[in-house]
């Protein structure tokens, strides 16, 4: 029997957390403020006279029996900000030795899903690589977490990443604006900044969770190397020595800094951590500090 995605103790610690977003999305009540508009919901708001075409299911039949007049019950509209978690499932997520980025991404997505389910949010789990894969929509409480965890556990990383294609498909598949949590190593042949900028421009709030392996940032090898790209299979032969290592690390840090600036510029947030950082520490550390969860 495979080990569970998240253990029970960790899940119990997650129950007091809530996913926060910063923006007020068009057509919806943003943040966690209670809506002043009536509509479909669970909480009773008021009565009004029945008009032709109203939903008969909202008629207060007890009042009709007593007063012989049709009154319609009105309910408080619940804020339904869609939370969508994009999980990078490309082959590059499998590199990094024993602790792969893909495992960290799945555990992080699972933890965020559980936090949302506890708060009765609707969470869309959307894996991607070259394009969007089949998604999984979960909501309705913590008892719906087990199918979500199974979905995440069954995921297998493969293929190459194409952020342009993913952004295009996402924009057409999810027209309703919401919180977009992207968990990825953001390593692809093409550029990822423009697609992310595009998604932010059309109204999605970006929460970029950048996961890297230690060898992605500081390669431990030296000498004569034949490097193979995990996604494209491209090869590169080179001599890599200690004095070049710092140059490489500087390049990586520059790239991560660019992602952070993009997110900040577009009103989103960016968090980066290595696979050595446990998911527990990431949730209660950096994610809590930037008020992504609290």
């Amino acid at each position, binding site marked *: 029997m495979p080990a569970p995605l998240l253990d029970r103790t960790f899940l119990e610690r997650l129950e007091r957390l809530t996913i926060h977003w910063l923006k007020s999305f068009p057509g919806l009540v943003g943040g966690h403020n209670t809506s002043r508009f009536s509509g479909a919901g669970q909480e009773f708001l008021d009565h009004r006279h029945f008009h032709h075409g109203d939903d008969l299911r909202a008629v207060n039949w007890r009042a009709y029996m007593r007063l012989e007049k049709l009154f319609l019950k009105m309910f408080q509209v619940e804020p339904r900000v869609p939370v969508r978690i994009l999980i990078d499932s490309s082959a*590059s*997520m499998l*590199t*990094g030795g024993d602790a792969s*980025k893909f495992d960290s991404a799945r555990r992080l997505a699972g933890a965020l899903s559980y936090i949302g389910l506890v708060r009765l949010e609707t969470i869309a789990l959307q894996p991607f690589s070259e394009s969007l894969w089949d998604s999984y929509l979960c909501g309705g409480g913590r008892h719906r977490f087990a199918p979500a965890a199974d979905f995440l556990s069954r995921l297998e990383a493969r293929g190459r990443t194409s952020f342009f294609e993913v952004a295009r498909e996402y924009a057409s598949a999810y027209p309703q604006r919401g919180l977009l949590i992207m968990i990825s*190593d953001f*390593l*692809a*042949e093409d550029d990822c900044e423009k697609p992310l900028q595009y998604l932010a421009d059309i109204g999605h709030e970006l929460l970029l969770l950048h996961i890297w*392996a230690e*060898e*992605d940032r500081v*390669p431990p*090898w*030296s*000498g*004569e*190397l*034949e*490097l*193979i*790209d*995990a*996604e*494209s299979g*491209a*090869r*590169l*032969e*080179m*001599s*890599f*020595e*200690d*004095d*070049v290592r710092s*140059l*490489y690390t500087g*390049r*990586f840090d520059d*790239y991560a800094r660019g992602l952070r600036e993009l997110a900040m510029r577009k009103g989103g947030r960016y968090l980066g951590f290595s696979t050595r950082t446990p998911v527990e520490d990431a949730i209660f550390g950096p994610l809590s500090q930037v008020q992504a969860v609290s």
Partner: protein
Amino acid sequence: MFFFNLTAVEFLAMLSAISSFVVVLYLLDRSRRRQVVATLRFWQQSDLPSQRKHRRKIQHPLSLLLQLIALLLLLLAIAQLRIGAPGASWRDHVLLLDASAWMNARVPAGLLIQETRRAALRYIRALPASDRVMIVRADAISTPVTGFESNRETLENAIRQLEPGVSALNLAQAFDFASQALRLEGGRPGEIVFAGAGRMTSEAIGELPSPPRNLRILPVTREPDNCGFRRAVISRSPADPELWQTFLTVRNYGRRSRSLPLLAAFGGAPVATRRLTLEPGAEASVGFEFRTNAAGWLQARLETGDGLPLDDTVMVELPAHRSMRITVYSADPGLLRPLLSANARFETVFRRPGEALDPQAAILIFDRSPAAAPVSQHSIWIDPPPGSSPVSVSGRKQNVTLGWRSEHPLATGLRTKDARIESTQVFASAPGDIPIAEAEGGPVILAREGKAKTAVFGFHPMRTALRYELATPLVFANVLKWMSPDIFRAVELHAGSVGAVSVPLEEGIDAASVRAVLDERFQLPFTIRDQKLRFFSGAPGLVRLRLGERDLVYSLSLPEIADSRWEPPKSARSGFTGIGGVDSVARDLWYWLALAGGLVLLLEWILFGRGTALSGATRARIARLIPFVRQRQPPARRAS
């Protein structure tokens, strides 16, 4: 210069093989490693150096050169490269350390054994490090303390723990042992080294064969003055068992005349004092007598104040006097009184016939009288009345001629010529009975074995013509000795030194009956040759010899001090000269080579090692200090 473990050809072959192996490993180490990465984005940056075109090319020749130099140095160290002639390699030596009793002597600089230890340690430290040494403890018996050992700490510990014994030095055996050890177990024979005073007995020096050619002497020349006991003999007076006759032998081992007081005490009470004047090398005997019937310790002490106190005191444990009680039931005690009172070991009691039996008596004699009760002790019946004889009487004969059955020990020495007995009872012997004397018709003196031994006389010897014959007291003595042999056993006490002891034997001693017992527990092996019994005891103890009717008790408590000094031959090397000569001819270089190899490896690791803790800048600075270090070439880049 030569290689200790390898010939030059073997060395070069091994160096070539290992160097080739190292070069191959070096090239393999420098070969390209295949690695899957998440992206090539950062590797393809223009400011990163890229691949080299010829990957099999030696890229750091200095690194390879340093590795090969380190390999050469380490291989030379393993081969134990030496400067010198091949004959001057390691050797095996046997170091004989004098552990005789003489080494207990004290001189102004300390004990002689300490001086011996210092000489031995100095010799060990002067030897080349590769030489092996066997430490042998040399006293009466040569005993190896270590095997052939090159570990100097082990050897020095063995030397420091060596303590002298109490026996004398036997160099002949030590030289023989050392020669055999070198021949059988040693590698390249070295020296046989003797460290010590070389004090031996004159006999041992006379029997010493020519010493080995490779002998070296580390002499201990200090000679302390010493006077001491050599032996002591204590025995009971034959006439008076309570009188002890003591003879002490004292020797002056020194080179000046000494006048010494001697004090002897028994149980703490002085029994004799003497003053002895001894010339150098002279021995003197002192005799004195004292009377006691009690057991106790006799201690004799010489007030010498010399350097060897071990032989200044001699102590012997004296046994208590034992007597045997004989009760005679006779109406005419005057007949047997002279016969029984002649021996001081007998305590004779006379009672009238018919009195109650004496339970404390060892032997009962019934003179023409019956026993008042059944007899459970040994008994002698003389002309028993009819019906009271313990053996069957076949009749009485008159005027018979007596004949002795001398084949039995009971009749040993009995001789009479035409001895006639006027009247005697003749007994009917049963199987197992021992006839001592016979007349016509049967035995007239009969002995019977049993838990209580019995002897029956058919006549009273003191009432016949036999009373004038020597056979009469002899036959009584034989019967009494047969019944209680221990009371007739003579005890002689000797105090001597440990080692080999030679005891002269009387004629007629049955070798099968001789026993030697150490400390009343262990059978001690001995040899009998030329009427001498020889045994050896390497440790102090009490040895009891049973020689027929004589007991000799040897209290081996004195050290065996040799009386002469062995003079080594002039051909033998002496002192410490020439020990290090071998080392100066062939000098060990392996540790310097190993150190140099390690330093070269360390330098290579600092300059080119991957896992070094030094930063790149530090290594660059170190590399700049060495002008011949080639700067690394910026590689060209090639993407596949």
